[in-house]
């Protein structure tokens, strides 16, 4: 198994990610009005986006900032890439949407949940991951986006056959 990259490169990735998103954000401000909350119908376009930054933009139309108020719980090594138990909870209030992005999947956006008021801001679900990947959970609270990220190692099992 290739040795995994140390912590500093993931920070570098994050910075690059954030930088490119910011640029994109600036780039299309004039013509695409940023939609405030996740709209109420099935976000078809967001699910089609390949990479994470485009998916976030298509779903929320704005960028997220990492926040330690978003608690993302995922295994360090997935027992199986087909069934990875993942959950997120947050102490932020006025949460209207929670979404999960699996960077290395064919389409980054995995699942998005609309949280009406009166519903607790926490979700547990089981997602598929194609390979070792960065997993990002995004919480939309009071119109702003907060994120948490974790790396999940994924590989096949058994001795090969």
């Amino acid at each position, binding site marked *: 198994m290739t040795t995994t990259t140390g912590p500093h490169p993931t920070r570098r990735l994050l910075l690059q990610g954030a930088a490119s998103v910011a640029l994109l954000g600036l780039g299309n401000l004039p013509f695409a009005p940023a939609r405030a909350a996740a709209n109420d119908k*099935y*976000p078809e376009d967001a*699910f089609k986006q390949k990479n994470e930054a485009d998916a976030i933009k298509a779903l929320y139309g704005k960028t997220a900032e990492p926040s330690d108020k978003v608690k993302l719980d995922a295994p360090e090594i997935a027992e199986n890439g*087909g*069934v*990875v138990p993942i*959950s997120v909870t947050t102490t932020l209030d006025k949460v209207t949407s929670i979404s999960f992005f*699996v960077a290395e*999947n*064919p*389409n980054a*956006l*995995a*699942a*998005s*949940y*609309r*949280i*009406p008021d*009166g*519903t*607790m801001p*926490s*979700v*547990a*679900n*089981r*997602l*598929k*991951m194609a390979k070792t990947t960065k997993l990002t959970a995004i919480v939309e609270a009071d119109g702003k986006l907060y994120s948490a990220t974790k790396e999940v190692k994924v590989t096949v099992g058994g001795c090969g056959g």
Partner: protein
Amino acid sequence: MASSIRVRATANGDTTEVQALIQHPMDSGFVKDSKGELIPAHFIQELKFECNGKDVFIADWGTAVSKDPYVKFSFKGARKGDDLKVSWTDNKGASDTTTAKIS
């Protein structure tokens, strides 16, 4: 035919915890079958939970949700004995619905 949705909704105090397991292949469209042909995408896109006439939770799912999908959440404002309506539709237009009593 038994419903494809298994729901457990338990209320303690004002908070109701809901767990759902749904029988569905959730084919992503990226997987090949034994003969090497792509299995077409067939996955639940929207899963809705309603209680006392109000949506309490709506899931928009893509191709990365596991087979026989599971979800857990909790919400306030319901009491023991209330009905929780659960319904899903998939990308082929199929759907299923069930109603569970909050215990």
